[in-house]
C-alpha cells in the first residue's frame, strides 16, 4: 500500500512538471498581440430577414415584413474579403469589401457592394475561437427592374462565429449575423413614406490566415 502511495505521489509530482516543461517549449495556442494580422475570405447564402417601413401608409402594405416569402425576395449569396490587424490580444480592427446579390420573386436582381470598417472581439481563443464583430460602412445598392435604380446607403453589421484552427495559421469559421441597409428617402422625396430599413442574415463559411 505504501509502495502504491509513493508511486502515485511521484506521478503527481512528475506529470505537472512535464506539462510545464511542454509549456516552456511550445505555446498551446496562438496568442494575438498588437500587430497580429488576419486575412479572411468569406462566402455563403444570405437569408432576407426583414423590411421595416416605419412611415408606410398602411393602405400600401405592412410596415414590418419578415423572411423571403413576405419580402418577395429569394435567398441570395454573399462573398467578401477582410483584413484585420490586432489592437491588443483580443480586439482586431480592419476593413471588409463584399458583394451581395439576391433575386426578387420576379427574377429582378438586387445587388449590394458593402465596404465597412470592422471591429472584432475574440473572447475565447485557441484551437477553437469565438469571434464577435460589428461593422459600419457604406453600401452601393442596385436593382435591375424598371429604370434600374441605385443608391448609396449606410451599412451596419453585427455577427458572431465559431472558428476552428486546423493548423496554427489557418482556420475556418462558420458565422452568422445581421446586415442592416437603410434606404432613407428624405422629407422632400415624393415617396418619403417608403423609407425602409432592410435586414439581411448572411450565413458564411470563412477561411482565415493569421500571422504575427
Amino acid at each position: 500500500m505504501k509502495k502504491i502511495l509513493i508511486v502515485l505521489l511521484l506521478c503527481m509530482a512528475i506529470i505537472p512538471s512535464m506539462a510545464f516543461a511542454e509549456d516552456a517549449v511550445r505555446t498551446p495556442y496562438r496568442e494575438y498581440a498588437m500587430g497580429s494580422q488576419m486575412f479572411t475570405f468569406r462566402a455563403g447564402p444570405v437569408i432576407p430577414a426583414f423590411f421595416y417601413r416605419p412611415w408606410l401608409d398602411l393602405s400600401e402594405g405592412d410596415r414590418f415584413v419578415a423572411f423571403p416569402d413576405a419580402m418577395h425576395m429569394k435567398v441570395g449569396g454573399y462573398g467578401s474579403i477582410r483584413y484585420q490587424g490586432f489592437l491588443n490580444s483580443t480586439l482586431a480592427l480592419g476593413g471588409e469589401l463584399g458583394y451581395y446579390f439576391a433575386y426578387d420573386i420576379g427574377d429582378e436582381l438586387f445587388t449590394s457592394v458593402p465596404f465597412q470598417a470592422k471591429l472584432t472581439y475574440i473572447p475565447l481563443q485557441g484551437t477553437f475561437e469565438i469571434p464577435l464583430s460589428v461593422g459600419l460602412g457604406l453600401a452601393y445598392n442596385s436593382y435591375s427592374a424598371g429604370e434600374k435604380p441605385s443608391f448609396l446607403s449606410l451599412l451596419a453589421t453585427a455577427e458572431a462565429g465559431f472558428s476552428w484552427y486546423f493548423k496554427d495559421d489557418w482556420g475556418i469559421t462558420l458565422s452568422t449575423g445581421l446586415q442592416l441597409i437603410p434606404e432613407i428617402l428624405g422629407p422632400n422625396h415624393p415617396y418619403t413614406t417608403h423609407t425602409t430599413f432592410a435586414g439581411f442574415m448572411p450565413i458564411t463559411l470563412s477561411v482565415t490566415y493569421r500571422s504575427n
Partner: protein
Amino acid sequence: MDTKRTIRIAILLMIMLLSFISLGCNTENQGVFKRISESVIQVDVGSVDLIMKNGNKLYANTGKSGLQSFDTVTGDWASIPRSEDEAVYHYTSDGTVSTDGTAFIYATGGTGSATNDLYAYVPGTASSVDHTVDYQVIAMVPQHNLILRRTGTGGYAVTTIAGTDHVTFATEFSETIPPSIIASNPTDFIVTGKSADNSKFLHFFGSSKDALDSTDADFDDTALVAMGIDGTEIVVIDANGKTWQGETNDFVFDAGVSISGWPASRYPSDAPYPVFTEGTLLYLQDGNNDFQEITIADGIAASVSKTAKPFAARLANIAIKSYVRRGTDVYVGTMQNGIFWIDLSDFSSDSF
C-alpha cells in the same frame, strides 16, 4: 496640433459621408426595397400584347410563345392552333368595349416592301384560315379593327378586317418613312407621320381626314403616340410625352403640360403608347411605373397628375405592355407578369 488635424479629417469625413448619404437620398424612384416587396412572379410567356376577349378567353401575342389564349377562369395559357408557323408581326380584332371579338387577323412575312400574308383566327372554330385578301401592312391597332396599309408609292389607307377603307392618303405622307396609327375605338383614330417632303409631321383624324393643327409649331415636330376622346373633347400625347388638348369641332390643339416620368428612351420613339380611358380621364403608366391621369378637356388648364386610385399601387412594380377594355373591365397585358385586370367600378386590380 494633432487635435486640430484630427478635427479637420473628421470634418472632411463627415462632409464625404453626408455627400454619399444625400446622393443615396436623391433618387426619384419609389424606393428599391418597397419595389422588391411588391415584385411579382414572372410568367414565362414574356410580354403580353392583348388582342381581344372572347368569352372566358383573352387572346394575345406573347414575346416568348407567340399567339396564345389565356383562360381567365383556370389561368391556363395555350397556343392557338395555326395553319402556318411563321413569325407574327401585326394583329387586330373585331372586339369592342361593348362586344366580345369574334375573330382576329394577323400578318406574317412581308418584310420591306413585300406583301404580308394575312390569316384569320376564329375562336368559334378554334382554327386559323387564310384571310380573304393580303396587304402590305404598316401597322394594326390590336383591339380596334384597324389596319394601316400601303396602297402604292407613297399611298396609304386605313382598312377594316372586312376590307372597308375608312380613309386613304395618296400623297400626304412620306414614302420612305411610313406613318403610324393610334386609336381610341374603331372609328376615332389618328394617322400620324412625316409629311411627303419629310419636313414636318402631319396628323389626320378618322374617316373624315380632318387635319390636326395648332398655333404652337412644336405640334408638327413629332409623331403622336396616344389619344383619348370624350364626346367632342380630345387629348393627344406626342412622342416626347407632351399633352395637347383640343375639340373635334375644329381640331385646333393647345399645348398642355409634359408628363413627368415619361420614358427617357423608347424604341421606336413614335410607337403607340398603351393607354386606357374612363370617362373624362385618360390613364397611362409612365417610365417609373407610376400611373398618370390626364384630363380629357380642351384648353391648357387640363391637368396631368399621378393617380391615387387603388390599381396604381397594385401595378406599381409591373411594367405594362397593353390594355384591352371590355365593359367595366380593363385587361392588362404586362411585360413579364402575365395578365392583370382593373375593375373600373372601384378601380381595384389584381392578377388572375
